[in-house]
């Protein structure tokens, strides 16, 4: 019997999918770190088929059939929130949050994000080159924004950024991730209890007043929701901003096109989202037998939707390996698809547009201070990107 290919595989260039995924298309069996065999779905149409059918392809993280793509997913089973639930449980929780993430509400945050970005760039310019844009720029922008939105004190950022990294990094061990989840839960539980005594004006305060006080959510449920919003609210966008800088610098003609026409910024960000695929893959498990691209998927089978390759499917995107800031295609699956599609996607778009647009306008001579090949790439099986981004200008 031949040995199945492994999922996940590490990227050799931070903005390209691992080359090994090319052999899987569009649906094939792969082996996870723990030896379990699951279906890898790499085609775009097949990815949408799975993600649009939550009745057949469940997100229930607690269920033993839900596949752990990396060790930390075993610890994540103890965190119960809507990302790991199916409808109707999922729907009820997600709806409690929707009003805070509309296009209008996120656009209303733009002036604040602009002020924040301007201030960080003032500091970077004052200090002079070389700057590491990960800690000095890409991380604080979304971290401060999500703190203000939720009502989490940014003064605690060193703690929650460190713990968040441990729960989104591919190489995190079972023990490390269990400890990080436990620390984040304890921190948020204490914060929420404090807010119950002394209310503030963040989304967590609103949820305490509207849901916890009326029995719509228990405090423990709110802790798990807060954990998701806090972690997903900064670590992914931080990776996207930093890797967006790298991707634009490594495609100078595209960067020049964007500079000559700043109105391209929204489509350029959309193309970065498609091209980079920060979230490499999404797990599901089959609740019933199903047909998938001619394969017979059995009830209980694990499935991983490979976002990075679905976004490079030539059937869905002409010249898929080309990075084109004027492509104007929004049907990528970088935010997922179906009922679980990212609730914070419009906030992420706003943060990326303002951060990248302002950075390249203010520092026209921006360039990498280290070769692309020497930038440390984030490990397989977690949020993708670079750990460091030394630049000069």
């Amino acid at each position, binding site marked *: 019997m031949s040995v199945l290919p492994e999922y996940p595989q590490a990227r050799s260039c931070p903005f390209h999918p691992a080359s090994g995924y090319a052999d899987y298309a569009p649906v094939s069996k792969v082996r996870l770190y723990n030896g379990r065999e699951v279906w890898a779905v790499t085609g775009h149409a097949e990815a949408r088929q799975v*993600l*649009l059918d939550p009745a057949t392809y469940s997100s229930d993280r607690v269920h033993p059939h839900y596949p752990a793509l990396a060790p930390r997913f075993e610890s994540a089973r103890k965190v119960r929130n809507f990302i790991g639930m199916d409808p109707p449980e999922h*729907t009820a929780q*997600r*709806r409690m949050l*929707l*009003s*805070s*993430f*509309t*296009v*209008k509400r996120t656009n209303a945050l733009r002036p604040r994000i602009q002020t924040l970005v301007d201030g960080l760039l003032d500091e970077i310019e004052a200090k002079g080159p070389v700057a590491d844009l990960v800690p000095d720029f890409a991380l604080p922008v979304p971290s401060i924004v999500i703190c203000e939105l939720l009502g989490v004190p940014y003064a605690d950022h060193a703690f929650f950024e460190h713990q968040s990294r441990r729960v989104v990094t591919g190489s995190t061990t079972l023990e490390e991730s269990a400890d990080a989840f436990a620390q984040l839960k304890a921190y948020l539980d204490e914060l929420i209890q404090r807010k119950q005594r002394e209310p503030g004006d963040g989304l967590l305060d609103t949820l305490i007043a509207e849901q916890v006080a009326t029995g719509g959510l228990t405090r423990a449920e709110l802790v798990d929701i807060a954990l998701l919003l806090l972690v997903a609210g900064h670590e992914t966008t931080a990776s996207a901003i930093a890797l967006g800088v790298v991707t634009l610098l490594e495609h100078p003609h595209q960067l020049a096109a964007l500079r000559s026409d700043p109105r391209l910024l929204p489509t350029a960000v959309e193309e970065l989202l498609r091209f980079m695929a920060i979230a490499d893959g999404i797990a599901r498990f089959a609740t019933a037998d199903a047909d998938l691209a001619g394969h017979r998927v059995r009830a209980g089978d694990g499935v991983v939707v490979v976002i990075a390759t679905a976004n490079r499917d030539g059937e869905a995107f002409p010249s898929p390996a080309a990075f084109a800031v004027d492509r104007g295609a*929004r*049907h990528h699956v970088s*935010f*997922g*698809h*179906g*009922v679980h*599609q*990212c*609730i914070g*996607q*419009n906030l992420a778009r706003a943060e990326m547009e303002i951060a990248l647009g302002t950075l390249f306008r203010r520092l026209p001579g921006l360039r990498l201070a280290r070769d692309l090949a020497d930038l440390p790439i984030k490990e397989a099986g977690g949020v993708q990107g670079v750990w460091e981004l030394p630049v000069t200008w």
Partner: protein
Amino acid sequence: MRISADQGRCLGAGQCVLSAPDRFDQSELGLVEVLDPEVPEGDEQRFRDILDLCPSQALSLEA
């Protein structure tokens, strides 16, 4: 053709508002509102593409 929206399916991703802000909005609860449902003749494919982006399949075209 007319655009029909099912608020019961909507999960507030906002794709419709991004695609056609003159046609779609979101309510205070974050759910889809159709500002103008009429699809002019010849524009059907453009709207099918927009509706296809809806992750919760809350939008459809009706005769």
